[in-house]
């Protein structure tokens, strides 16, 4: 049975993150937000306006921000520290490793501008390495919602359910807000969006929509593709991956991230150790991004639905 998709228009996942922080802030008086000068750009202006006394401006100083968050968490607060993923995950990586993760503190880190769909800002601002760096850290949970509604839900769950560090990755470009509200979003659980037995397409973040569209293109070509949304990259849902490997025998992963060490690698770790089958990892192939309109870049880096379907056909032909 395929999921009935919703049509709630299009929104960036960053909007969902901002709304999620606002809702979590209403529920948790101890939730505090740190500003790193790009407050509106990462969706936190909603909270800053509503709860100005719980918004702390720290300027352009990401390393300080991450460790200040640790100090707040040690004092019983739930700090939210968000900036572009390139800075959140890379500039403050050591502070996140030692002060946040080694101390195992409930700090919510938001990584904005995920992937090349950031567009014209170009390579410096397109986060393509953050999944790899965040998922290697002990105690860290890594979330990558596929649409704004899911981003809001996961952000609220990160505040409500977790007591440990969490990295939430989200994008700038509007993406269809389609996840059916009647299927449960639970940290650590993948979501089967379309049945299929010829190949499994597993995607994360904004690429889930593209993977779904690719599956519909493949359907017209006689390929019955399963589509799975993995919104929690760590801890990853092993069961849904092993089941897909067993039943479809072939797996293709799709991410807006380097193909080394990211989402595809996380899936491959599960597949190789539990039910080895052929895999294709679609993502950015060990190169930096560049300027351009988001759609142009998705085309150039072969990440749109049409290119994904072509790659899948090629992969199936090579492995029949």
């Amino acid at each position, binding site marked *: 049975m395929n999921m009935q998709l919703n049509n709630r228009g299009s929104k960036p996942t960053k909007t969902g993150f901002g709304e999620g922080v606002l809702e979590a802030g209403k529920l948790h008086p101890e939730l505090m937000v740190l500003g790193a000068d790009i407050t509106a750009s990462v969706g936190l202006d909603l909270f800053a306006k509503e709860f100005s006394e719980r918004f702390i401006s720290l300027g352009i100083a990401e*390393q300080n921000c991450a460790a200040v*968050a640790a100090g707040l968490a040690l004092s019983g607060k739930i700090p939210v520290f968000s900036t572009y993923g390139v800075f959140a995950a890379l500039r403050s990586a050591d502070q996140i490793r030692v002060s946040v993760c080694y101390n195992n503190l409930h700090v919510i880190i938001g990584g904005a501008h995920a992937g090349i769909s950031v567009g014209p800002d170009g390579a410096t601002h397109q986060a393509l390495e953050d999944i790899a760096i965040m998922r290697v850290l002990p105690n860290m949970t890594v979330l990558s919602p596929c649409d704004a509604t899911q981003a809001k839900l996961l952000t609220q769950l990160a505040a409500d359910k977790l007591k440990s560090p969490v990295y939430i990755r989200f994008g700038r470009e509007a993406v269809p807000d389609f996840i059916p509200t009647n299927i449960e979003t639970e940290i650590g659980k993948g979501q089967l969006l379309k049945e299929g037995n010829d190949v499994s397409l597993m995607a994360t973040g904004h690429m889930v929509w593209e993977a779904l569209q690719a599956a519909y293109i493949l359907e017209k070509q006689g390929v019955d593709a399963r589509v799975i949304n993995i919104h929690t990259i760590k801890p990853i849902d092993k069961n849904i991956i092993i089941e897909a490997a067993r039943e479809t025998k072939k797996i293709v992963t799709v991410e807006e991230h380097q193909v080394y060490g990211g989402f595809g690698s996380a899936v491959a770790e599960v597949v190789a150790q539990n039910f080895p089958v052929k895999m294709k990892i679609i993502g950015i192939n060990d190169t930096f991004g560049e300027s351009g309109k988001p759609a142009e870049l998705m085309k150039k880096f072969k990440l749109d639905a049409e290119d994904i379907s072509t790659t899948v056909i090629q992969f199936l032909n090579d492995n029949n």
Partner: protein
Amino acid sequence: MIFKKIQDAGELKIISANIRKDILLSLAEAGSGHTGGSLGLADIFTCLYFSVMNHDPQNPQWKGRDRLICSIGHVAPVLYAALAHAGYFPEEELLTLRKLGSRLQGHPGRDHGLPGIELSAGSLGQGLSVAVGMALAAKYDREDHRIFCIMGDGELQEGSVWEAVMSAAHHKLDHLCVIVDRNNLQIDGRTSDVMELEPLADKWRSFGWEVMECNGNDHKEILSTLGSMSDVHSKPVVMLAHTLMGKGVKAIENDYRWHGKAPSKEEAEKFIATLE
């Protein structure tokens, strides 16, 4: 029960000597670790834990306690010895330092369950930021406990320290008291040769901090400076504590080669015999 505070400098001096003895014994038993800075800070740790800070070894998580963030995690031996002598855990446990399964990790690690450890730390330059977070929380909650942050002078070469310094002044964090162990030495040699820090007091002052200086190996001076620090309002305060690396053991005082070296058991015995 809040720790009973000792004001008599003579009595504090005896505690510092005992702490130094345990630093040497634990390091000799461990076979590695940081001797120089640990010995140099013994007097400051004694004053904080036995005379200045509000804390309760029987209830280490007491909400109203003053916090001590040891940003230079490598001086763990002096932190551990001070905590043990204050009653947080048995002094015999000091001899497990750096050993497999010990609660006394090479650099403090909260995950190993040692009571009294506020922060797992060891990567230089992070402790002040964490202390800023704690001071922000205390200010928001209108609590009056203080956050003490012990830093090394070499550590001030880390750029992110100055992000933290800027933010503490911006938010007028008067709950925050920083103590810089100004011993002028680091692993490669003199700080002035490795990377010049002077004019150090001017740097802090220009960032909006109140700056105090004292002889960090003189209990009376330390106590009176720490006392004045609590009178500073609407801005953070730093004490540049002039100490001698290796203080108390004449044979190794002011010798940067003892920054990261542990004494052998024979050396430790010899050093202990000469402790002031």
